[in-house]
């Protein structure tokens, strides 16, 4: 079984559907109810909510092979003009929510004897994208957390990696205009726009049995010209 947070929309939705097409059993997690079978309502900012969801999944009694953390939010704002509640919401969702999710769900994978964790970062981290300071800070935290977790879970045969996409057309980037998208694409090594399938291809690569030695890494979609 594979858990996909943010499985109701955008990349998470695409990844969950594609995994089901490949005959994986998937549990989707997001706040709002959806029509999907195997969907659990859960706010990743809420630790108790996650604990309850953990119990529900554990009670299914099926081995969990992977956790894919797509749940996330973004907001373009200058560092000095980002409202306090927006700062808190971005950090609470992207960073703290991702840490909670990893901490609460990792034991499900430990029980299975091996597995994969994939967290989502962004190209905005490596290129220090203007207008996305708080979002980038939250995702830089996710990258660092994932690296340390990779070390701590290595003995359990669990790999932990991040995927860092550039702009992919989902609700998340609705507020970004075409010029801004083009400017971000210029920072990728491969200067073209990638899509949901390209992200899923990297997910498949990480989930593959051949990738058991790939851990603590950040996979940029299209490569990036950043400082790392």
């Amino acid at each position, binding site marked *: 079984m594979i858990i996909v947070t943010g499985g109701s929309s955008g990349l998470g939705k695409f990844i969950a559907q594609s995994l089901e097409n490949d005959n994986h059993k998937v549990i989707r997690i997001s706040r709002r109810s959806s029509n999907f079978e195997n969907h659990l309502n859960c706010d990743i900012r809420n630790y108790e909510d996650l604990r309850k969801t953990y119990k529900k999944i*554990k009670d299914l009694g099926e081995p969990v092979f992977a956790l894919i953390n797509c749940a996330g939010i973004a907001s373009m704002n200058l560092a000095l003009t980002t409202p306090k509640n927006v700062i808190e919401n971005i950090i609470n969702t992207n960073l703290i929510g991702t840490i909670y999710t990893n901490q609460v769900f990792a*034991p499900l994978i430990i029980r299975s004897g091996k597995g994969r964790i994939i967290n989502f970062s962004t190209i905005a981290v490596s290129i220090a994208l203007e207008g996305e300071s708080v979002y980038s800070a939250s995702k830089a935290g996710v990258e660092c957390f994932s690296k340390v977790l990779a070390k701590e879970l290595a003995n359990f045969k669990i790999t932990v990696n991040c995927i860092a996409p550039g702009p992919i057309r989902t609700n998340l980037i609705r507020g970004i205009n075409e010029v801004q998208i083009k400017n971000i694409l210029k920072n990728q090594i491969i200067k073209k726009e990638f899509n949901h399938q390209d992200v899923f291809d990297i997910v498949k690569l990480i989930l593959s049995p051949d990738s058991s030695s790939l851990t603590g890494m950040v996979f940029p979609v299209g490569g990036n010209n950043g400082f790392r």
Partner: protein
Amino acid sequence: MITEDEIIDIVISVSDNKIKKENFNSNSNLVGPNSIFDSLGLVQLCIALEDKASEIGFEFDWKSEKAMSTMSSIFKNPESLAIEFNKQFSEQKNK
């Protein structure tokens, strides 16, 4: 409920019998510099205790703030761990 001896038995089985009963008692350290248990073993112990709790119908939360903020860590030794486990059991049963 769980006894200190049961916790010691779990510790030994989680260690793949590398830890010997004659070298381990209810006051032996589970964490810290004097521990003969590594972090891998500690997580496995937590999971085994979670399973044991499920068997007897309650939820053992080894990450709870209350558990972690006790004067000495619940993981100090099998004695402190048994006390916390049984405390959580009683609290949930009396709810």
